[in-house]
């Protein structure tokens, strides 16, 4: 298969970016999207130019490191996959493909298609955990959790932190990401003691870092490679309101 690629190039955070056009031919339909970029990069190195920088690691859809905005969609046209799981057979021969980085104020561009997503870690650091230190915990079966609740928590916990939800959102909202963590821990008995503090602190940090409000259009859900449900956002809103109204606890730790 042959393709024309329009790719965003930007030297560093401060430099001005631009699209550059590349032609690539003889690509197998079984080639993954990132392998196609590997082939392009190898040809660029052959020509002594700087290869296109993009984040990637596990290449099996679980680490959340890769993330390209392809033809206007985070992770491209296929559903429920990350960029590394996208294959060229999903495109038509001769197609022009536009490749951009995630675009959101809290994700500054580091180089080309690589963005800085440490803002997501900063939100987790505000309370996306149970404050259990190592040792002195009860037996695993001392805490009973219904299968239904455990499965529901697992669904929320399967977020890979790639940031596609932020990239998909017109407001660059991180609500789906934050609500997935809030939900996982609110559903489980282990997370209950800190639930009210957690949701308030995480939401405050999210706002503080410049992520926008929910648009209620659910583009995040539609583009999420792990199919995290928007009902998480509803649960987080409920948790947040209850915490604000009913909680007498301070949000200070």
């Amino acid at each position, binding site marked *: 298969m042959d393709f024309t690629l329009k790719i965003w190039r930007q030297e560093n955070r401060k430099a001005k970016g631009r699209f550059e056009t590349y032609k690539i031919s003889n690509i197998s339909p079984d080639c993954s999207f990132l392998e196609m970029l590997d082939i392009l990069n190898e040809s660029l*190195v052959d020509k002594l130019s700087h290869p296109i920088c993009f984040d990637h*690691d596990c290449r099996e859809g679980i680490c959340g490191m890769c993330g390209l905005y392809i033809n206007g969609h985070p992770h491209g046209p296929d559903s429920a996959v990350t960029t590394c799981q996208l294959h060229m057979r999903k495109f038509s021969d001769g197609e022009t493909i536009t490749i951009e980085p995630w675009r959101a104020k809290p994700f500054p561009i580091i180089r080309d298609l690589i963005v800085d997503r440490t803002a997501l870690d900063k939100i987790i650091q505000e309370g996306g955990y149970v404050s259990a230190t190592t040792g002195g915990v009860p037996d695993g079966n001392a805490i009973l959790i219904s299968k239904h609740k455990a499965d529901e928590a*697992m669904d929320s*916990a399967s977020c890979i932190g790639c940031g596609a939800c932020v990239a998909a959102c017109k407001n660059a909202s991180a609500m789906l990401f934050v609500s997935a963590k809030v939900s996982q821990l609110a559903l489980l008995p*282990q997370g209950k003691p800190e639930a009210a503090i957690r949701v308030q602190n995480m939401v405050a940090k999210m706002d503080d870092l410049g992520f926008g409000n929910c648009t209620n259009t659910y583009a995040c859900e539609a583009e999420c490679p792990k199919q995290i449900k928007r009902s998480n956002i509803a649960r987080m809103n409920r948790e947040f309101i209850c915490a604000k109204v009913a909680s007498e606890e301070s949000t200070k730790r």
Partner: protein
Amino acid sequence: MNTLDSKIPEGQLSEKWTKYKASQKLVNPANKRKLDVIVVGTGLAGSSAAASLGALGFNVKIFCISDSPRRAHSIAAQGGINAAKNYQNDGDSVDRLFYDTIKGGDYRAREANVYRLAEVSNSIIDQCVAQGVPFARDYSGMLDNRSFGGAQVSRTFYAKGQTGQQLLLGAYSALSKEIKAGTVEMYERREMMDLVVVDGRARGIITRNLQNGEIERWGAHAVVIATGGYGNVYFLSTNAMNCNGSAAVQCYHKGAFFANPCFVQIHPTCIPVKGDYQSKLTLMSESLRNDGRIWVPKKIEDAVAIREGKLKPTEITEEDRDYYLERRYPAFGNLVPRDIASRAAKERCDAGYGVAPSGYGVYLDFKTAIERLGRDKVEARYGNLFQMYEKIVDVDPYENPMMIYPAVHYTMGGLWVDYELQTTIPGLFATGEANFSDHGANRLGASALMQGLADGYFVLPYTMQNYLSDQIYESKVSTETEEFVVAEKSVKEKLEKIMAIKGEKTVDTLQRELGHIMWEYVGMGRNAQNLQKAIPMLEDLKKEFWSNVRVTGDLTSLNPELEKAVRLADHIELSQIIAKDALQREESCGGHYREEFVTEEGEAKRNDQDFMFVGVWEYKGKDQEPVMHKEDLKYEFINVQQRNYK
């Protein structure tokens, strides 16, 4: 010569760890605050260690090669984590888990370390539950278990097909809590470039900031290496693209010994290689072998017809299928350990029965399971894996059998450590896949997660205190000393040298050549002739790298080509000791299979008389032959037997 002291505590096996903990030295809280610890790597082993040490009150700095600890490749582990809880009442115990692990490792692991691993396994499950890890539950609300290769009990805890992800996110959450508390400082997009040794002790590291190329110095009272394994020397493996053995090689060069480098695990159930553009191989969880049946056609003409696309697997009748694992190993069937399942697949394909277009592939079939359990149940158990397979291969595994082939997956070898997980350099500790300690010559499924977390949560927080108790008199480590200056300078020179070569071959081309040599001559089936061929080939490749590699870009900005080149240089060195170690080990054991040493039935034949030792390699300098030392393995509590899964 350095004598290898494994520091195994005296006494009965079951009392060693208890006794150690009762007699080790501790550090009081006021002094903990004055002691600095560096952790390199943020996977299960690194994150759990940093979180636990931070919670104790030490000053911890942790270095991450990616943008976040959650990217570490522990996240990709699918199947589960073992523990000796015996919740199923099926006869499990600490002794049984210990025995299975030693036997699975083909009697090449240390008894005391493995026993401790089995002992602390139960605490790991409790710890993870307390963190909010959503393990699978049954309808009573209790934790559920599944079975795994090499065991006859159900002791594997799991969270869908994403157990590694959930455990890593648990460790990451514990780490995030400590970062918030200020006990751990996190440095992302940093790669370790060298270890700094002062007066014989590990005192810090040199890193490269991958975003801007800055070379940085960091001092500490102790350093922990938790950088995973070196499976990527084979180019195609199930490892992530950033996984590398560079940190371990740097430590090896600075005097840490490297143990059992030839023990590499080839995982039997991966998606076969498709084309030469391929960048990595995808694992299909071992848990699939619980219900999937592995087969190839009985008639060679059927295999040929399938390869040519003239026949479909579904058209082959039951009597014309060879379920070769069930045939050869009736007791364990499709659940034999990984090394055995891998070799059996290779044996069938080498004999001409392979079914992939390349000839290297066998079937993993769920037809019987779907008939027995119904499609819904199969979907509930393996749905995400089936989806992953279909996305990659574009074939529906509910209708057609999956095609699988073995691929490099895990390295049992690693930095040599004693019972305290300390290397031969005082103050340098190695943990998780980066050390060699617990899996012998073959690792059982669901044991890597167990070991990474055991080391980080429950072993290092004790053993490191024993070391650090002597360090309270040492002031903060200055990074202005001669040793740091020299280390930084040599890193800069090495990088400049690589950039200056401006040769003809890209890093990926050379990496592929390395992978080819390693897979063909130092791969699944090894023999003296091929190994002797590989050694000069690797020497030539090393020369070619240092004279003909092409790295574009510059030193002072983000430059993935340079990152890959540095790792490749180290991988070639590692490959050389892998080949040498494989050559000296004239026996077949676990993942190391020497074609000259087999039983009449073609099974691996161990030589306990001459090779019941750990092969421990010492670096002697550039252009010098490394020297191998032996740590003899003594089995005092276990009856050593020939492994038998029939």
